[in-house]
């Protein structure tokens, strides 16, 4: 019986949902961070944490289970086992973090960032727009041209628009 077994269905059939979550988790593994709706982030979090637990155990059987769940995306499996599992070695569960963003223009959906806790992206602190204009206008003006290009390039990588439909 299916009593009380709750799953976030996300308006999809089981196959569609499993495929979508596999894609989303593959993106999360490769890009370290995905921006998606809150409901999808919560569903993908459950999958991602279970796979990372398998990866930390790290046997051949575990590797095959992960590969099956990720639809044999072997690049993602390799990154999960070789990069993410050692990074989260000391952490006992709670490997991912969900950050809520503002509502999306267009459909007012709740949008969130899903990311790994222990592989922190180096998002360079950028000066908030209002403050430097009043306080450190000359200093900001000299630094800004030099700082801009690498920062902008880094941002393209860190926040992919990876809302898997």
């Amino acid at each position, binding site marked *: 019986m299916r009593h009380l077994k709750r799953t976030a269905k996300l308006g999809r059939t089981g196959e569609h949902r499993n495929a979508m979550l596999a894609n989303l988790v593959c993106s999360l593994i490769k890009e370290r961070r995905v921006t998606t709706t809150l409901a999808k982030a919560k569903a993908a979090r459950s999958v991602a944490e279970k796979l990372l637990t398998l990866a930390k155990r790290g046997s051949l059987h575990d590797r095959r289970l992960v590969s099956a769940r990720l639809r044999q995306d072997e690049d993602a499996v390799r990154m999960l086992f070789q990069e993410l599992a050692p990074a989260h070695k000391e952490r006992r569960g709670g490997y991912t973090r969900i950050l809520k*963003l503002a509502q999306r223009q267009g459909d007012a959906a709740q949008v969130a960032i899903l990311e790994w806790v222990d592989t922190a992206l180096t998002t360079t602190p*950028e000066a*908030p*727009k209002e403050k430097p204009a009043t306080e450190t206008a000359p200093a900001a003006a000299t630094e800004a041209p030099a700082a801009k290009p690498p920062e902008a390039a880094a941002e393209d990588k860190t*926040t992919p628009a990876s809302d898997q439909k």
Partner: protein
Amino acid sequence: MGVPKRKPSHSRQRQRRAYNSVLKLPQLSTCPQCAAPYVPHRVCPACGYYKGRQVVSVQALG
């Protein structure tokens, strides 16, 4: 096709809209980083900070 028989009276119209005066904006906090108003437990849309950490680039958000 079913069509309304009468136009709603002024009273009905006002009753329907009475609740609109109760609607309010969500509770907003002031961002400790940039002093802009933001919804609690969300990343600040003005500066991209959350819990004292830059989590998202405002330029990337657009």
